[in-house]
């Protein structure tokens, strides 16, 4: 049997340690491959009268990159701190590797954190910072040096062992913090907006690097961010939070293409919203026909599979600005092809943004709409004209997302 395999031997190599860890897990008999790394069951956290996290339920699968996304104060950092052990849930239970972790202090949890401002120890050089966790676990000096070297190579900082952390650039400090956490082979790596302090270009670079790194080491990442683009770039699963509650979770495409409520549609990217009333529902294709307050009839997809809607219900139709098309009004007789909605309107504002231009168009039937137009043929693709010019906006019914609430 494989019972002779010690967890230590199984985790000896950093790269590909997920597979090795699975073996270690199998030997302990506590959990198997299907056990989620972290399971949050009905967790509520209150600070006095404020409820930071409200009856949260989340299962974080092994080896995946999870992002907790939401505006500040949505409870994403509190969730992270409860997994790390810095906060205790007021109600509910968190399972790590299948075991409840209530009351276990942070230093006895096999979880490591990359802090927002790195929190590198200023009185230690890079190697001593990275080896800190290993020393607490009484890893032999030779072994420590070897693993520190490995971890630094992993974050492309080989040879930086004796550097002072505060002499390094923000991006390098970031990598040291990452190495310091990864070197311990945590079950889960928690990252608290670690790229927030970097400038845009470096941030984009680090996003791709982080994602590649996560694939390489196979450790589960839980990443907290308020930056939707960051979440879209890196995540396998995005969990959108608001006011301590999960709004929706899914892979980036699913969340962007199929937001189930107005908050998600607005927070992830941007959307045009049209208030409407349901006229008819086609349950088999999960589509509905709705009439806007100004009398515009639209057909669209009901995104929330759990939503039960009937004629007369108030809904919101969301459309993404890039799914709308705009062209100068050439005076041709209006007559839309089947499935298309065509509306006459006037430009209120046009903004040139380099790769694309954004137009705010006021229409009679749908109010103000934001239309995004890719500048594919240089300045020639600009619409020309200015505020007040008549234009025609059109979009296909597949762009209509019908949101409940």
């Amino acid at each position: 049997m494989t019972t002779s395999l010690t967890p230590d031997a199984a985790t000896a190599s950093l790269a590909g340690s997920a597979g090795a860890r699975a073996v270690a897990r199998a030997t302990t008999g506590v959990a198997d491959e299907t056990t989620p790394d972290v399971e949050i069951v009905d967790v509520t956290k209150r600070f006095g009268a404020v409820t930071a996290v409200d009856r949260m339920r989340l299962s974080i699968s092994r080896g995946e990159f999870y992002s907790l996304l939401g505006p500040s104060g949505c409870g994403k950092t509190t969730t992270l701190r409860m997994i790390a052990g810095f906060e205790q849930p007021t109600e509910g239970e968190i399972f790590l590797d299948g075991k409840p972790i209530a009351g276990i202090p942070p230093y006895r949890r096999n979880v490591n954190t990359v802090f927002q401002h790195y929190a590198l120890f200023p009185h230690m050089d890079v190697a001593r910072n990275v080896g800190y966790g290993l020393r607490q676990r009484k890893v032999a000096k030779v072994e420590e040096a070897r693993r520190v070297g490995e971890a630094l190579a992993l974050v492309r900082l080989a040879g930086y062992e004796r550097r002072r952390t505060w002499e390094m650039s923000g991006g390098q400090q970031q990598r040291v913090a990452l190495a310091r956490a990864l070197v311990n082979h945590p079950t889960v790596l928690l990252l608290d907006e670690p790229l927030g302090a970097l400038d845009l270009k470096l941030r984009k670079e680090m996003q791709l690097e982080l994602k590649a790194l996560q694939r390489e080491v196979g450790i589960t990442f839980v990443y907290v961010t308020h930056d939707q683009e960051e979440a879209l770039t890196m995540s396998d699963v995005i969990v959108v939070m608001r006011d301590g509650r999960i709004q929706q979770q899914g892979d980036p495409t699913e969340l962007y293409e199929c937001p189930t409520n107005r908050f998600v549609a607005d927070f992830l990217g941007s959307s045009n919203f049209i208030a409407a009333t349901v006229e008819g529902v086609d349950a088999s294709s999960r589509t509905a026909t709705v009439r806007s307050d100004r009398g515009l009839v639209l057909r669209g997809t009901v995104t929330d599979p759990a939503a039960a809607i009937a004629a007369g219900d108030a809904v919101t139709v969301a459309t993404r600005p890039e799914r709308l098309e705009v062209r100068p009004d050439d005076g041709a007789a209006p007559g839309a092809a089947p499935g298309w909605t065509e509306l006459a309107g006037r430009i209120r504002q046009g903004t040139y943004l380099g790769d694309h231009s954004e137009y705010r168009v006021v229409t009679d039937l749908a109010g103000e709409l934001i239309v995004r137009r890719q500048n594919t043929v240089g300045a020639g693709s600009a619409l020309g004209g200015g505020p007040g010019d008549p234009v025609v906006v059109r979009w296909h019914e597949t762009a209509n997302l019908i949101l409940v609430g």
Partner: protein
Amino acid sequence: MSASGVARPRAGRGRALIAAERMNGFIDGLFRTQAALVYAFLYLPIVVVVVFAFNANRLATIWTGFTTDWFGIALNDAVVTKSLGNSAIIAFTNAILATTFGTMAALGLQRVGKRTRQGYDVLTYISIIVPEIVIALATLVFFASTFDVVNPVLAGLTGGGKGAFKLGFGQFTIIAAHVLFNTSLVLLLVRARLSGMDRTLVEASQDLFATPWRTFRQITFPQLLPAIVAGFLLSFTFSFDDYVITSFVTGPGSTTLPIYIFGQVKRGVSPETNAVATMVLAFTVGMLLIGQAVLAWQGRRSGSRNGSMANIVTER
């Protein structure tokens, strides 16, 4: 004609500018003179003391020639060396105790409620703000009345004979009095550093499997060390040159250097006194430089831009 007519107002403006510049220059000069006078007032007396420590004349105020004899005489004077020794023992013991207690108090106060902390804050500031003479008097009264109560009991317990154990004024009382106000000083220094410390360092340490004790030893203590060193040095010098409190609670055989010097000065300033003062000055400046060097080294290690004593208090 027309040209001069145009030029005249320009020349007028030029004159006004020159006048204004002269005025500015004059005010500038005044400030410089004032600054020079202030510094002269502060430091000239010290220079005079040092210079006359090397004066060959017995009369301290008349310069007749250069000599280093007075230093030898001072160092061979049993009274001088005894009081110097007393001062050193008292200052050192005081510094160790005050640093220990002050640091412990600072760490403890971090964990108590806001009310309790504010209460202790008031007491701490009082012990620093209250005039020294009041503390001196209070300490004297406290010790005297305590001894009045305790000594008869002790006498009863130990037989009351000649070798009976008895509490009295001396080094012990001086140290106790000094520790009292120096603890507050260390407490304030360490707390300033503690509140300026990045709390996430402690969390990061716990996150990396360090128990609370190991976190204190490996993270918190090294971060506080500059403030602790500063507290130690300051309480050493404050104790070393204290006159008021010491003079109240001193006893036979525990004369400190400031008390000795003050006694000497009453009989007129001698070059020997000047030599003693110069040595103390050199020692104090030396301590200060060592302290600064330690702090600068610590500052480099802990990444703060400038590790001076002033920074430890103000750094946040």
